[in-house]
């Protein structure tokens, strides 16, 4: 009897997880900047790349590295030249993004607290 219940629970959670993953992937794509973009943005690198290599790529693209985020392969960088986002990709970045929909999620009953925690780790240029 309970075996069927567990199967229902697992099926439900896996479905929800799949929805969350698909939504995240679509949201990541939607936050990708066009090659012509310039200004402050997030540069995303292959996580296997070493920090100096990422830094060098940012400079090579003509950008000013501002800070590394809590995801080590995601940097906040600024570049004023038109087409800076495209230059980042040519220099080795996977992509240039606006705010990324990735942050640790807590589930409390106090939305104020959850909002503050999310704000702290928001991947925002």
């Amino acid at each position, binding site marked *: 009897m309970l075996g069927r219940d567990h199967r229902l629970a697992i099926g439900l959670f896996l479905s929800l997880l799949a929805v969350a993953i698909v939504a995240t992937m679509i949201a990541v794509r939607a936050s990708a900047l066009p090659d012509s973009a310039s200004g402050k943005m997030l540069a995303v690198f292959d996580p296997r790349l070493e920090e100096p290599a990422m830094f060098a790529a940012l400079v090579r693209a003509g950008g000013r590295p501002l800070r590394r985020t809590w995801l080590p392969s995601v940097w906040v960088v600024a570049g004023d030249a038109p087409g800076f986002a495209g230059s980042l990709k040519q220099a080795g970045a996977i992509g240039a993004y606006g*705010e990324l929909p990735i942050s640790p999620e807590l589930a*409390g009953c106090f939305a*104020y607290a959850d909002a503050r925690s999310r704000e702290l780790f*928001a991947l925002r240029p």
Partner: protein
Amino acid sequence: MTDVAESSPARWLYASSTIIVAGCLIALIAFGVRATAGLFTAPISEAHGWGREVFGFAMAMQNLIWGLAGPFAGMVADRYGAMRVIVVGAFIYAAGTALMAFADTPGMLFLGGGVLMGIGIALTSFSIIMAAFGRLVAPEKRSWSFGIATAASSMGQFVFAPLGQLFIAAYGWQNALLLLAASTLLMVVLSVPLGASKGGVARGEKELDLSMRQALWRGFGHGSYLLLISGFFVCGFQIAFMTVHLPAYLIERGISASLAAWAIGIVGLFNVVGSYLAGVYGGHASRRQGLVFIYLARSAIIAAFILFPVTALSTVLFTASMGLLWLSTVPLTMGLVTLMFGTRYMATLYGFVFFSHQVGSFFGVWLGGYLYDRYGTYDPVWWISIALGVFAAIVHWPIREQLAASFAAPAR
């Protein structure tokens, strides 16, 4: 208990699995949309030139209104049934979310994001869902259903956070709020299977036929209920304090921002598992003992964490174990309310217990900040959390895990 599946012409609609899935999705939406608030802090504040405290105040207000409205939402649900309450709640929730998009004064933001959303959440959140499950699901599955509802609520944040971000990126923050408002209206459709619970009629054979006033009077005259209320205050205090202040504490202790973020993510993930397992446990074993264990374990784990040097390993172990204990109190607490008072007024009586939780949350956040500013360290609040955990274990211990005598029908 009425076997709805047998008596209804649309059997699949009122089958227990349909009821469970629909209820879980409602809990998920109610929790999830609320959890996207953090995404709108910056755009709303920047668009209107407001300081972050305006948005923060609206959110704090939302939490207190949710807590205050909880007992009243429960009363309406117990009287008119979960479906009607959820339908009304969904429209209020949607109105509040939509109003945030057009709020051009702080007062309108407080009304939309604070008052209306707070009432909307109270009318649609897991306490109403669990009360409906309590009436519609067979008694042997009741605790399990409380666990899955709590876990589904937690999953709401995982699902809606990227959706909220997607909506903002694609359509701008105002339209994103309107889309989120529209998504809360899905709860109207999802509430249909819960319509099998009409409210005002579900009463176990052993329960006395009481009016709402009598139930409240007798409930507050029952010692175990008062102990449960005081214990749940602690849950709110500990969780809200850690949610807000744990990241800062970790970074202060030399943990990298990266690990701190992952640590928070670990809490969220393990919480889903812990909530579900607590529900399963409550169906087989003593809920009272389960709660005593959870509060004592929280105290012991917190003490070990702050007494020893904070390392990457201790951080991961701490957050994983704390995640398992995070909302695991919810199904057990609801289970005790149901056991002591039956299903007739469970939403109302749980509403008061939950109010205590929200008051505890407020104090956890506030005291965490206040004492840190005063002493320059989080240690005093950690120790208060430890002491409160022990207090909660002590007050749960004498709780009588049986139908309250004042609610029991005389034996024939």
